[in-house]
């Protein structure tokens, strides 16, 4: 491939770094249900109207010419190309892997996507298809998408995915526990899943924690769940499964981006963000990049720290990319349908 993406691949195959020690104040926060509740409810609130207005204003940025070309390539490199259907087959997954490694067959300069995201039983297929291309295998796990299963079942789900070669695990939090205020239970589950991500050689699959913001309903909850996941050691926080509406929105992702920014200020640890579901157009993707750029800063404009969970987005990015290069639209017949 024309582009190499060494950083992330290296990172995941290294030995597990111990969790960055939290400052004492935050460590105390996770010591009991009561302290955790106090901490999460002590976070500053989010004003819904203000947050949505800010996101809408960021959405009016005009990204043209060189900025657009930069943004499109970056967005392609951030895509977790996803298929999560009951009708998925090894053939479908292999096709998706081919697409991920070479999104535009006519242009070897086109970057590859960050990862392919599948159900656990198809991890082995994806692993084989992707080989050492540098495109990661991401697997949803923990009784995705509802998360309604016993903890040992969820952990077995994770271990299976990791054993079959998943580089990244996308877990769902227990929304029932979160909404009923049993925060420590949610935290302990994330910690347990993180441990289940360990491999025999001492390395660990990266953990993305899906908050399912569409079920959390308020931005205050989204901010609390973000901190909860980060305190538990998430490498990424992710908006949605894609199975619940609304999925990712610009303001909800912005609230999560604010959380990772504040978490780094407080702890020095950098956590990534992945909006997933409902991002279909290049224009939308560029709005997210602008938001990340202005809210958290350009440090997060990196596939190691920002991803798009999407399927149809990639083809729109490719069409726009070709249009930037040639000056005309090729149309949907000229991108591959996989």
């Amino acid at each position, binding site marked *: 491939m024309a582009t190499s993406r060494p950083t992330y691949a290296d990172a995941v195959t290294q030995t597990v770094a111990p969790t960055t020690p939290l400052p004492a104040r935050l460590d105390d926060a996770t010591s009991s249900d009561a302290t955790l509740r106090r901490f999460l409810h002590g976070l500053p609130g989010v004003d819904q109207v203000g947050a949505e207005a800010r996101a809408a204003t960021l959405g009016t940025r005009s*990204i043209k010419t060189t900025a657009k070309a930069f943004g499109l390539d970056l967005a392609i490199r951030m895509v977790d190309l996803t298929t999560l259907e009951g009708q998925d087959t090894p053939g479908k997954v292999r096709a998706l892997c081919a697409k991920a490694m070479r999104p535009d067959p006519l242009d070897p300069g086109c970057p590859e996507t960050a990862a392919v995201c599948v159900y656990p039983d198809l991890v082995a297929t994806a692993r084989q298809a992707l080989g050492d291309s540098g495109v990661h295998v991401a697997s949803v796990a923990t009784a995705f998408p509802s998360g309604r299963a016993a903890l040992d079942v969820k952990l077995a789900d994770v271990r299976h995915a990791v054993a079959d070669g998943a580089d990244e695990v996308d877990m769902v939090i227990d929304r029932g526990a979160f909404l009923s205020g049993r925060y420590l239970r949610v935290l302990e589950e994330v910690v347990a899943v993180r441990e289940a991500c360990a491999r025999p050689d001492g390395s660990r699959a990266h953990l993305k924690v899906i908050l399912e913001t569409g079920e959390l309903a308020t931005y205050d909850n989204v901010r609390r769940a973000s901190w909860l996941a980060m305190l538990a050691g998430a490498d990424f926080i992710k908006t949605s499964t894609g199975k619940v509406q609304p999925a990712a929105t610009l303001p909800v992702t912005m609230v999560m981006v604010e959380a990772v920014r504040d978490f780094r200020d407080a702890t020095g640890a950098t956590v990534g963000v992945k909006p997933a579901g409902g991002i279909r157009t290049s224009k939308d993707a560029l709005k997210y990049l602008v938001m990340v*750029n*202005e809210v958290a800063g350009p440090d997060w404009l990196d596939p190691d720290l920002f991803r798009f969970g999407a399927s149809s987005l990639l083809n729109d990015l490719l069409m726009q990319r070709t249009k930037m290069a040639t000056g005309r639209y090729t149309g949907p017949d000229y991108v591959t349908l996989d």
Partner: protein
Amino acid sequence: MTQPEDAPVPTRPGPAEVFAYAPAPESRAVVDLRSSYGLFVDGRFVDAVGGGSFKTVNPATEEVLAEVAEGTAEDVDLAVAAARRAQTRVWSRMPGRERAKYLFRIARILQERSRELAVLESLDNGKPIRESRDVDVPLAAQWFFYYAGWADKLEHAGFGAAPQPLGVAGQVIPWNFPLLMLSWKVAPALACGNTVVLKPAETTPLTALLFAEICRQADLPPGVVNIVTGAGETGRAVVAHPDVDKVAFTGSTEVGRQIARTVAGTRKRVTLELGGKAANIVFDDAPVDQAVEGVVNGIFFNQGHVCCAGSRLLVQESVAEDVLARLKRRMGTLRVGDPLDKNTDVGAINSATQLARIRELSEVGEAEGAERWSPSCTLPAHGYWFPPTVFTGVSQAHRIAREEIFGPVLSVLTFRTPAEAVEKANNTPYGLSAGIWSDKGSRILWVVDRLRAGVVWANTFNQFDPTSPFGGYQESGYGREGGRHGLEAYLR
């Protein structure tokens, strides 16, 4: 709060270093600039009687945009005479529902020509196209739509069974929102059956003259709207004209005082919308990211050229450090530059005079011992520019905490208790607006009850709506514009 007590000001590379937004300029081609403009009197563009003219420049480049006729007392006389004729013979006799049709038509033309108006406003005023496009012009159209709806319902407005227009209104408007202030003045006056002689500010006459063209396009009867361009002398002539029944002014407190003196002892009715030194009060339980956003919007919107700007930040001492760190980080992402670039957040200062005033007061602030901070930003070589600036360590005794700077300069003060916040917020000769940031509804209501300000925003700032009255206490003026209340200024 979530920040460690000693949170440093976060530093990071500017957006330009990684994701540089390419220039995205709005095209000037949509504007048909003429080299010279006359006065709009009795439905026609005419030269000034004295033949005098002045230049209006683009404050972002100092390029001369056009020569504009300078109206004299004689021109004002002709305009008032035309307005009187139109008022007695046509406009006051016309049924309200007919007047409404003209106002609706004007509102629709404002929408149809919105892009042209927005570009012209940004050229002449220096404000970012994002603001003229998304705020000024849409609001101007909304004002006409709103008051068009009142024109045939005046007897139900609560001002008597058969309210009558006042006659001829002399209106003098400022340069900070040229078209929007025009619509605040013209729409209610016309809806109530008055005719107007309007003097736009000398640095921003162009959108008013384009509005004159729109009046012709709408077939508005001649003389109903007259526009006499010029500077202070012209404004004085409008205010002092004996046949003017009503004076409406928006601008500085100093000029407002002169106007009040001029009209004292006459039959003229007056409304004045003057300066302000609004407090934006941030409590420790505020939604902090939105509060910071509101503080930025409160003072850097329209380069701080806003009479209701939140130019004093009152922040609870227990969260001051965190709020300031966030504020500075946010200010670092403000994009200052070409007003016609769609990604510009802060445009040019409107005039050399205003720039000199902002510089002077900022120097005073430093001399008085306040700490000055601006994000690093490169300002264009030509034109009038001032970076977004924040002063910390400001006390009530500092001039920058008392005087209206009318620029992108924020003074930060702290408070300990709600009572102290109210006391400091009210400790000003002005009283136009205020903002409160708190997640606690009962506290918001407690504070609102005690603030002496015409408009109080809770968990937002600088929101305008034609249905809502706007106006001040004390030296911020008297009378209300907007909403049902705004009709009162044009009826008897």
